[in-house]
């Protein structure tokens, strides 16, 4: 049922190349989910999010100092390996320093015809961020128009918004099914769905989602749900790891990370000023830790709400090694979980994970959650 998504995820580069051949359109490789994809769709440009490959590489150390996170190292490796050579443009919406480093190395060693750094605000809760971001969108639109030679009209923007919103609403529907006592999908399957939506033409993704939603509710899975887990972190497309966890009689039923729900959770609320509508969507979305900087701790509220709705029994908190923003949040966030009686286990992810070392920890964590199954 999820093979299409899995296939897209695994053959992301072939897809993008084929898409270019089919449509003759331009591809924008982008970093960070604060990039306004609506505007790119309005410009008929295909946004493809830059992912790692989870393969060790010896090409990064000369470009990045060792204390930079595995995800950004992995991304740089992909770029240097030439796996993104098909990209016509490269952009970043400012988030963490680590991704700024990826953008920098890309710009130095493999510049494309369109390189764009969008200084997305950090103070997303500030009222002043809105006009600022709208102005940045205008600047961005001018640059894109110059690049593609095509004017972006209101209708174009509406089309972009519609495509994105539809994708978000459909995936939200799938997420609602994860709340069931016996979710018809695994965390890995869900990961394939959300990740692929950042790689392929969302119009095709939407069709696949509509098909999925017809069959999914009545899907009979032979597997036990087991312990209901939530996975929380940054980029968490480590399929091998999630597979291992779900093979131990547990299921991920909720997530908060930017290769999952955080990227698509809320939709654009239509209003007269389209750019303002888009700006609000990105400023008000569930924040990346880099953007959660006030005493309101909005991220924590959102995560805990998700955890409760999904009736999770435990939370696996994973972090890309050296990711400061997450490292700052994690001890406080774990406390929030423990206060709600939800046990957490914390793991640091690298480009590749030592499955052996991690398995024993996860097994022990799950044993802890189902201690009553052991005789005492």
């Amino acid at each position: 049922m999820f093979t299409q998504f899995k296939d897209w995820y695994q053959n992301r580069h072939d897809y993008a190349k084929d898409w270019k051949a089919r449509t003759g359109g331009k591809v924008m490789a982008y970093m960070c989910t604060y990039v306004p994809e609506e505007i790119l769709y309005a410009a008929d440009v295909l946004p493809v999010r830059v992912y790692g490959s989870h393969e060790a590489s010896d090409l990064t150390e000369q470009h990045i100092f060792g204390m930079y996170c595995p995800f950004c190292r992995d991304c740089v490796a992909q770029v240097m390996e030439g796996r993104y050579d098909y990209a016509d443009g490269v952009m970043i919406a400012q988030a963490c320093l680590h991704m700024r480093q990826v953008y920098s190395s890309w710009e130095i060693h493999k510049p494309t015809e369109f390189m764009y750094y969008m200084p997305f605000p950090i103070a997303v809760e500030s009222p002043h961020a809105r006009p600022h971001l709208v102005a940045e969108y205008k600047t961005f639109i001018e640059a894109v128009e110059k690049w593609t030679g095509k004017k972006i009209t209101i209708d174009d923007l509406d089309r972009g918004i519609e495509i994105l919103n539809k994708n978000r609403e459909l995936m939200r529907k799938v997420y609602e099914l994860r709340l069931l006592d016996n979710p018809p999908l695994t965390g890995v399957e869900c990961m394939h769905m959300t990740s692929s939506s950042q790689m392929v033409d969302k119009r095709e993704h939407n069709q696949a989602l509509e098909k999925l939603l017809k069959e999914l509710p009545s899907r009979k899975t032979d597997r036990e749900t087991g312990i209901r887990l939530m996975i929380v972190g940054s980029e968490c497309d480590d399929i091998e790891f999630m597979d291992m966890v779900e093979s131990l009689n547990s299921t991920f039923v909720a997530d908060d990370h930017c290769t999952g729900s955080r990227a698509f959770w809320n939709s654009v609320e239509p209003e007269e000023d389209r750019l303002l509508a888009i700006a609000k969507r990105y400023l008000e979305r569930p924040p990346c830790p880099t953007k959660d900087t006030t005493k309101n701790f909005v991220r924590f509220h959102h995560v805990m709400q998700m955890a409760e709705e999904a009736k999770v029994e435990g939370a696996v908190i994973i972090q890309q090694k050296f990711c400061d923003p997450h490292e700052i949040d994690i001890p406080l966030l774990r406390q929030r979980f423990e206060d709600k009686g939800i046990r957490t286990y914390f793991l640091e992810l690298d480009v590749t994970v030592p499955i052996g070392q991690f398995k024993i920890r996860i097994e022990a964590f799950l044993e802890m959650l189902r201690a009553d199954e052991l005789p005492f």
Partner: protein
Amino acid sequence: MSDIKRYKTEPLKCWGKAKELRANYYKEYKEAKSKGGICWSGGAEAIDVIPYAFGDDVHSLTAEPYAAAIAFDPEFAHRCESALESKGWARDMCAYMRNYWGSVLIDEYAFGGPFPKPDFNLQSGFCCTHAKWFQVLSLWEDVPYFNIDIATIPFWKEEFPNRLQYIVDQMHESIEFIEKVTGRECDDERLIEGVYNDSRTTSLWAKITELNQNTPAPLDEKSMYSLYVFTTLDRARKEFVDFYEELYAETKDRVDRGIAALATERFRLMSDSQPPWAFLRVWRYLEQFGVVSTGSIYTIGLEGVWDIADDWSLTPREDLKSRGVELKTRDDALRAMADWHMRRPIYAMFYNADWKSKLMMQYAKQWNCDAAMLHLNRGCEGTSLGIMENRAALIKTGLPVLTYEGNMGDDRDFDEGRTIARIDTFMEGLGLKKLT
């Protein structure tokens, strides 16, 4: 060896004054409350001219210099760090933040007594730790917190009215914030005076470091580390302006009289990033080879404000008064200050490896450096952003580069023996022998 040239050298006259000023700064903060004044804390990036406008009895504790002061005392630093680690925080987070947090957690002030809780925290951040640093602190200290987001592209690179406006709008709001938490009114006269002072201090620092382009260098970087700190403390204060006027005059006089920081200077180095504060003796070790470290983009550009031309050449930016900038209203003042501070070269480090490489090459040229020694700083993601790209870029220009790993705030990440061994190897490659 007698065959090597020796320059005249003498200690800095204003050294004592510097010590006194610094000690006084930390004392004033500690005592502010008891004297009926106001104390606040925030990053050294914070636009501290704003609280300055609320009276002469408003005193700040700027976070980075304070954390560096902790780093000077490894024993104290370790207690701070382990207090944090035992609460589950990672060891590889910003070392300055960890030292500061730890000092609050163990409730010890590096300058004696319990940690003096501020009346409010005011941050202005552009890296991904700045704002969160005080988000958590404000939670623990249960004090009001305002962050001014200055993570826009630096103005010497690209200028868009909305970016300046965004910062100015937040500055206006921060004034309302301070008025609310202190019950005081913002004195716009004082604000304007503060803005002029601030620009003077930071312009003077640029001019002082520019003098190090001379051979022999009038200042060595180890001393500069103790002197640049005032640009990060309370730069709007008159006494700091005066100190820099004095330092500038003295340094200029040293240049005129050919006074060297290092009598045996025969090789000029540039560094990078914050140093491993617990190991400044490494700079003294370099001197045994007749090597003087002239400074770095960090030393001159953390707070020094420069005009950066299209060819990346650096000239100290004349302060607002000298530029004839007239400030009449609060908005004038805030706008001028935002525009001023967004011109600091330091932003290159945090945004774009290529910009930083260009500035470093320019530095090597203008400061006549023969080699570079780059600190792979585990304590700061910002200043080590793109540092390997910088290394490659400098080597391409034929400049020998040595990298060493360390940490500005946590001595556990620095291996002195191995670093000295590297330096020996590097020096040998450069054909430099110890002079005695």
